[in-house]
């Protein structure tokens, strides 16, 4: 989308404690990725709030070719006839455009994405601040370029903050792929396709609390540790970019 300055910030982690790591066997640490990044470089993170005027709050996130819009509606009347609840409800939905993937109509299954997003956000929202009502978080992936879920989660957190929903903290999410002996951060779709394992960490950066962590595939104990450090460091840097975005919007 338009209006982007060339100085879009990025949030690549810097791990000092792990310098002693032996160089990866397969490709070497100077391996350059399809988009020219090094293993531990994140894509520039372009974030903007208030992109959908019809919503209570909204945000647009563009990380490379991963482009997401999230709208937040409410607190509003709960639509489903449910029991009275003295805490608020969170409702999440993720969908993809038909042209988001290289082959038309091959968007991923979104039911579990919606539920994963719900679980990632729930812990950070002060649900008691809107009893009886519902906050709806709707995401549309305009283009799927890899690391979709962490970008959706990050964008959703920004939209919630924009909507004035009370939060314990903002939420940031970063994923890494394990390819052979290498750990690559913020992977592209192509990289996700040939990964041996993946890890997504969602956390509240200023409180140092993880709300969600998903690990799949093959991992060694040492690389799991390294991957966690990478994710947490990138999360905290991404958090700073998000706070700057919120402050600039005001």
């Amino acid at each position, binding site marked *: 989308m338009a209006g982007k300055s060339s100085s879009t910030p990025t949030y690549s982690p810097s791990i000092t404690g792990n310098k002693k790591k032996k160089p990866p066997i397969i490709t070497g640490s100077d391996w350059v990725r399809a988009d020219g990044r090094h293993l531990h470089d994140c894509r520039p993170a372009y974030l903007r709030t208030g992109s959908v005027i019809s919503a209570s709050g909204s945000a647009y996130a563009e990380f490379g070719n991963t482009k997401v819009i999230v709208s937040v509606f409410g607190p509003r009347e709960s639509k489903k006839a449910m029991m009275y609840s003295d805490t608020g409800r969170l409702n999440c939905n993720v969908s993809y455009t038909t042209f988001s993937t290289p082959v038309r109509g091959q968007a991923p299954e979104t039911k579990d994405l919606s539920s994963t997003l719900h679980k990632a956000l729930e812990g950070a929202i002060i649900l008691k601040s809107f009893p009886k009502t519902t906050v709806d978080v709707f995401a549309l992936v305009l283009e799927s370029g890899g690391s979709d879920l962490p970008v959706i989660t990050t964008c959703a957190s920004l939209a919630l*903050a924009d909507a004035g929903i009370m939060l314990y903290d903002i939420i940031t999410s970063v994923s890494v792929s394990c390819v052979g002996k290498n750990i690559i951060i913020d992977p592209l779709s192509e990289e996700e396709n040939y990964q041996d394992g993946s890890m997504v960490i969602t956390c509240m950066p200023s409180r140092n609390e993880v709300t969600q962590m998903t690990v799949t595939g093959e991992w060694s104990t040492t690389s799991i540790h390294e991957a966690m450090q990478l994710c947490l460091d990138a999360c905290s840097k991404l*958090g700073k970019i998000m706070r700057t975005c919120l402050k600039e919007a005001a």
Partner: protein
Amino acid sequence: MKESAEEIFVTPGEVLGKPSELKPGKGAYISAHDNTVYASLTGFRSLTHPAADSDDPRPTVEVKGHKAHGPVPEPGAIVIARVTKVMAKMASADIICVGPKSVREKFTGTIRQQDVRATEIDKVEMHSSFRPGDIVRALVVSFNAKNNTVLFCLNPVYEESSFPSKASKDIEQLSLGDARAYYLSTAKNELGVVSAESAAGETMVPISWTEMQCPSTGQIEPRKVAKIGS
């Protein structure tokens, strides 16, 4: 009592101070975890110092001034609602304003027979109190199962329970109406119908507590009329 010179812009999760020095107001909370006061909203940090004779010398910290979400009905709030349906025992109404502010999306309210007026509540005839389309001013009530006392206070402070979701102490069980609707009361002089159209489509003029008159046809219609002004 405002300390305006010291306004800092904060975002959710930013540290505001220690509970020994600050009391959290709107947009702030205490984390039991690390005994710290954090911001929960985006906006300007503002400090309000207590009155000189207050027992608690700590200033209250609030976060405000940024875009807020639309207002939500709360117990004790005065709302303006449009009556949508009148039945024998109750009337339904869409809440359109909370206080002076309009809601972004409507909330459904219910006025039960016993909440229409303060006296002779068993003799209330719903169809002689409201008609669909009437605009009413009403109070959002909340009560526990036994009596009609308002328990909830406005602008509650959210103390964090043991995170993530195990509530340490439940706030008293209260009902904000059924699963969806809010219970509304018009049982006060200043509450009731504030604007209504006659059968002829004219805005009627109130002529008593219980009647309004059409200016063009002179026809009188019964209503639970709100007393305006004081």
